[in-house]
């Protein structure tokens, strides 16, 4: 068994070298004679193709997409999505998403219903890449339903999605917030991780009413406009250190001169992370200059606060 696998590994390695050469030449704009890719090599080719898709930007992606049709692989990939094993279906769905192949839509819908969370999520991501507007009706409700979809992969899906899809997700989220479902925190973590940079009504709701520090942290991560600062200030008395870290981060981005006092009080926190973010915020504020910073350092009696201030100044000088 092992000897067979070694020989097949060698053959695969040779094929990958060859395929790499084809793809590089194609990206460089050279003419490539369409090679015959055997069924057994298709998976390796797709792995390589996806790898190139992930690391390249701009026109090169178009050349890569052409490779699939030029090499006559699209029908084979469709077949793989129907009859392939788990790995083959997963890679085929990923490739179809990256190539924005509209003909794969129905096949992806089949994979979307599979029991495996990874499979259904991969199919969902492919649908979103192919047609974000059409996919939003199907995929957004599934994001809410599928609590087994991995948050880190979901965040990537949302981050790279078209604004149309993100807006559809946001609209649905605002509706969900009114219902206060038990999985609200999960949704808030998703939305806060994709950094929308637009003020949201749900931020106000949680910052003014919620007692759940995780929910408050997620809401604070969404704050991006000075009009939301009054809700942030309402949280100044929160003793949870993760909330304090986030407050310092927000003030560092959009803080006003009247917030400096609060940032100074955060410098005395026992948590290094709070002190660090508060110091970063203070130093980053446009109305704080070197001289006032020095005065700040001298005014601190707390050795930890002074220490963090010196560290950030040193870090900034290094940059």
């Amino acid at each position: 068994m092992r000897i067979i696998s070694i020989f097949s590994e060698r053959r695969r390695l040779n094929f990958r070298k060859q395929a790499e050469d084809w793809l590089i030449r194609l990206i460089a704009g050279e003419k490539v004679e369409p090679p015959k890719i055997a069924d057994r090599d298709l998976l390796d080719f797709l792995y390589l193709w996806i790898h190139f898709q992930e690391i390249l930007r701009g026109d090169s992606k178009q050349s890569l997409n052409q490779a699939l049709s030029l090499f006559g692989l699209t029908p084979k990939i469709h077949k793989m999505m129907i009859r392939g094993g788990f790995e083959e279906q997963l890679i085929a769905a990923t490739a179809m998403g990256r190539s924005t192949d509209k003909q794969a839509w129905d096949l992806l819908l089949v994979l979307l219903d599979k029991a495996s969370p990874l499979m259904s999520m991969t199919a969902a991501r492919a649908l979103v890449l192919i047609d974000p507007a059409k996919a939003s009706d199907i995929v957004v409700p599934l994001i809410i339903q599928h609590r087994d979809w991995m948050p880190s992969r979901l965040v990537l899906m949302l981050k790279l999605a078209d604004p149309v899809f993100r807006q559809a997700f946001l609209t649905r989220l605002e509706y969900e917030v009114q219902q206060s479902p038990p999985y609200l925190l999960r949704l808030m973590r998703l939305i806060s991780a994709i950094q929308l940079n637009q003020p949201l009504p749900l931020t106000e709701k949680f910052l003014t009413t919620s007692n759940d520090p995780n929910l408050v942290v997620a809401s604070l991560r969404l704050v991006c406009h000075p009009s939301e600062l009054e809700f942030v200030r309402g949280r100044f008395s929160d003793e949870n250190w993760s909330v304090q870290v986030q407050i310092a981060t927000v003030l560092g981005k959009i803080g006003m001169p009247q917030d400096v006092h609060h940032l100074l009080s955060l410098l005395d926190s026992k948590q290094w992370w709070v002190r660090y973010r508060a110091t970063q915020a203070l130093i980053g504020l446009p109305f704080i200059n070197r001289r006032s910073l020095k005065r700040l350092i001298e005014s601190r009696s707390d050795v930890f606060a002074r220490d963090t201030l010196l560290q950030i100044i040193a870090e900034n000088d290094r940059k």
Partner: protein
Amino acid sequence: MIELNIDSVLFIRFSEWFFLGYFIAISCGYLMLNLISVFSLRAYLPNKVLENIPQIYSGLEPPVSILVPAYNEQLTIVASVQSLLQLSYPLYDVIIVNDGSKDKTMEVLKETFGLIPYPEAYRETLKTKTVRTIYRSTQYSNLRVIDKENGGKADALNAGINASHYPLFCSVDADSMLQRNSLQRITYPFMEDQRVIAVGGTVRVSNGCKVQDGSLLEIGLPKNMLALFQVIEYLRAFLFGRLGWSVLDALLIISGAFGVFRKDVVIEVGGFRTDTVGEDMELVVRLHRTLRKRKKAYRMVFLPDPVSWTEVPEDLKTLKNQRIRWQRGLCESLFGNLDLLCSRNGGAAGWVAFPFMLFFECLGPMIEVIGYVLMLVFCWLNLISWPVFLIYTFAAISLGMLLSLLSLLLEEMSFHIYNRPSHVLGMLLGAILENFGYRQLCSVWRLMGLVYWLFGKKHGWGEMKRKGSL
């Protein structure tokens, strides 16, 4: 033939069946764990398909402080730190804690990484021995070194926790080397489930591997037989054994060589205990005991694929010391947290893993060694027949062999990291030969550890003869 009274005959018959039953029970226990691992791997491995494709960070990755306690590690520390500085992870720092080394560990670090004393304020959240100086690297902004008085590994880790900045800390041995993507993989459960408080990664043997500047160039098997036996042992007990416990939510050990913990929870339970030699296991068992008592929802997870490579002993003396230390640590961890045993909220950890560890791992060596000795004596005195003795020996050895071979098969089915035919042959040979002497020797050393623990004999840092293969 010696004349025996009825009590003696009964005792001999009981001994025969008891020891045979014990070997069958322990083997069945491990067999069950391996079977659970098979099912767990079947569910786990397909999810890894997309992980080899390059991806941007999601932004959910929690920042991590990597803590490396070091004592007399001048030969391996540079490679180890270099491997840590090459990890692919968005936000992490590396804190080396020099625990009063007597060799040139500190000098080597200063010279290689351009360390300068840094007047950093140090908050002693957990009580430790005096910290002399904190250094910062002029070449790597995320590298700090704490030079402190000698206080043992647990004390060094506690000092590292005090100096760490991030919400998670990862303990790594100074003679270990992490794979580039290890940190990314091991923190994954923290992103997926807010209840996760600790995650253990896999430790594999680096002896025989080709390493350069902290990077693993080629995976290989050691030529030294002792190290080869340990490769099999690490597979059997540390990889597939722990995976089985993790599925049952009853993981009692996360190796100090590679484990990530939530800092606030560890501080809440008092950090690492400095009066034990098995501080890693003790912490995990204490976390179970404390959090179950407080009825807090938590999870501790073992992942089979984030890998840390470590150098194992190649001489009998160092191996003996290591095994004695491990056994002492095991006893201290279990008997120090006896409240967990079959406790009301104990769950699988208190009702399954703890009794298993107590009877098979902690007291097991005693039963095993007494079993071997008694059977030999009975046979020598003609109190039992040769066939009975042979059946006993055959059962003990063949069950051990079965477990080792099963672990090899699992490795072949899942990760097959050792990819040359000579590797497979070498491991097969190791899996068979380790049952003739090596395992029995380990049992004797473990029994010594048990005795030392009973009589309270002290044991410090486990000193190891290094080859500096990292």
